[in-house]
């Protein structure tokens, strides 16, 4: 079953690589794969995984809409439009690592522990395509402790693995760390669906800490309190709307607008210009997130 799945994924990746990579690089890849899949030791695989950087660039994959749709059919949330050639080749190699579960996990763990920046990023981004998801969960959780943005992003952003597998505690830690590192929250898959009361509380506490230190608060944060709006969060948002930063105001307005809490609507009515913008659909979380990343981080 696992082998069949691996085959499907790797065929898809190969298709993407064939679109973008040089023939000579593809030949190298095929040659390595034919050795790896019958090998009883992972040594050759380790070397190929590293040396893929000599044959594949970090240019983004060229992806048609059909391929994007196919990706989601294969694995819900899989979005290779954020992938580059090199990590696709590395994932392709990984899908051909043909070992028994125990040996496979040992080899892959060693890869995680000895990986360079880009290798680690490739591994974490590949998680949703790999077998033994349950066994890899502790690795993914541990990975979120990194302070290397590139590696953190590979787990947290545009990756369906955390949404699907993280227990609430770890999910909340991931989101909080993303806020802390000022990463674009709108790129976290399942952010809305996995909002919870504890996370809303954590987000509000975090905002208060920032305010106490005289620092600004990323506007996307308020998306987390929307379903749990109460007097406490309303007071927070009142402060947000009094900000001189228009982007912060937009975040506050959108949070109020999306909430079912009647006093929230009343508060927003005091800001007719913002209300109009929100109602027209001009302000979205994605727009706020993009603008924040481009102009404030």
């Amino acid at each position, binding site marked *: 079953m696992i082998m069949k799945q691996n085959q499907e994924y790797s065929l898809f990746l190969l298709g993407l690589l064939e679109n973008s990579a040089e023939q000579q690089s593809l030949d190298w890849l095929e040659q390595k794969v034919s050795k790896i899949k019958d090998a009883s030791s992972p040594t050759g695989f*380790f*070397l190929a995984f590293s040396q893929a950087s000599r044959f594949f660039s970090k240019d983004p994959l060229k992806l048609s809409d059909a391929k994007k749709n196919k990706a989601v059919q294969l694995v819900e949330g899989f979005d290779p439009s954020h992938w580059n050639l090199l990590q696709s080749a590395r994932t392709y190699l990984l899908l051909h690592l043909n070992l028994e579960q125990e040996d496979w996990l040992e080899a892959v763990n060693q890869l995680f*522990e*000895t990986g*360079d920046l880009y290798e680690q990023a490739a591994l974490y981004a590949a998680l949703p395509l790999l077998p033994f998801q349950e066994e890899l969960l502790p690795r993914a959780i541990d990975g979120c402790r990194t302070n290397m943005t590139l590696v953190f992003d590979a787990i947290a952003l545009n990756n369906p693995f955390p949404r699907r597998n993280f227990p609430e505690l770890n999910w909340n830690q991931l989101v909080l760390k993303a806020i802390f590192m000022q990463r674009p929250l709108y790129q976290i898959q399942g952010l809305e669906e996995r909002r919870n009361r504890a996370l809303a509380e954590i987000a509000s506490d975090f905002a208060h800490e920032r305010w106490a230190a005289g620092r600004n608060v990323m506007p996307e944060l308020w998306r987390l309190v929307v379903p749990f709006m109460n007097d406490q969060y309303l007071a927070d948002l009142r402060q947000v709307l009094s900000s001189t930063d228009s982007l912060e105001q937009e975040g506050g307005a959108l949070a109020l607008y999306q909430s079912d809490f009647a006093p929230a609507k009343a508060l927003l009515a005091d800001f007719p210009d913002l209300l109009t913008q929100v109602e027209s659909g001009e302000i979205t979380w994605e727009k706020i997130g993009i603008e924040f990343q481009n102009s404030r981080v």
Partner: protein
Amino acid sequence: MARYIDPHIHLVSRTTDDYEAMQKAGIVATIEPAFWLGQPRTEVGSFKDYFSTLVGWERFRASQFGIVHYCTMGLNSKEANNIPLAEQVMELLPLYVGKEGVVAIGEIGYDDQTEAEDRFYREQLELAKEVDLPVLIHTPHRDKKKGTYRSMDVAEEHGMDPGWIIVDHNNEETVKEVLDRGYWAGFTIYPHTKMGSERMVEIVKQYGPERIIVNSAADWGISDPLAVPKTADLMRKMGIPEEHVQLVTYKNALAAFSLSGQMHEDDWLKAPPIDQTKKMGGNSVLRGGQVPRVEGPSDRVEN
């Protein structure tokens, strides 16, 4: 502004102030040779984590300051003397030598010139040949002349091309032989002692700029991470032509270590825009010329 490469610096032991100062002084790229940590390690896992740091965290840390970080991988001569441990490190090395940004096997060679040092030096020369990487040789600080000559004799015995070997920590006593035999000659500028910038100027005057490479070898001891740009300034003041200054503080290092295929001038001249989005939040150092944000560097992620 002039650009510099510091091709030998142990950044894991330097502060962020150093990184900021280096970037301001024009250092665009650094090479961090794998070395010891001031005291001998006792477990192979310590080597593993150290090697992983060189290709992971330290590379990332450097990038935050706009400096491209490369490294060399190897078992240093001091720790080669713990044979059971050294054997385990040799098993670990193949995992790292093929990685991106690993520009040489090094720093390897002799310290006390023991039998064990000789064994692991030779084994690593063979490893370098196998993976097509240049070699960075550490020459001993005691009995230097003999140790330096012996390093070259053994390299030649193993059929190495001198043009692929950087012999480091040279002085007035060793430089002639090293250059005559076709090797790259590295010079480490040590403040107060040994090789100072003034002596370096004299060497470049006497031998010319060809195949000579200046570095700081800054580490956890008394050393200066700005040794390369400072020496360059002194050379200019002492009338050494700009072209020669550029050769010994930038171009020669690039030529020697880019033999690995892992180092290209474009790595810093055309840093991919995607990297700009990977920086930690609010680090104004990265944005040369831009008006710093209100929050400035204090907005970096706390570690």
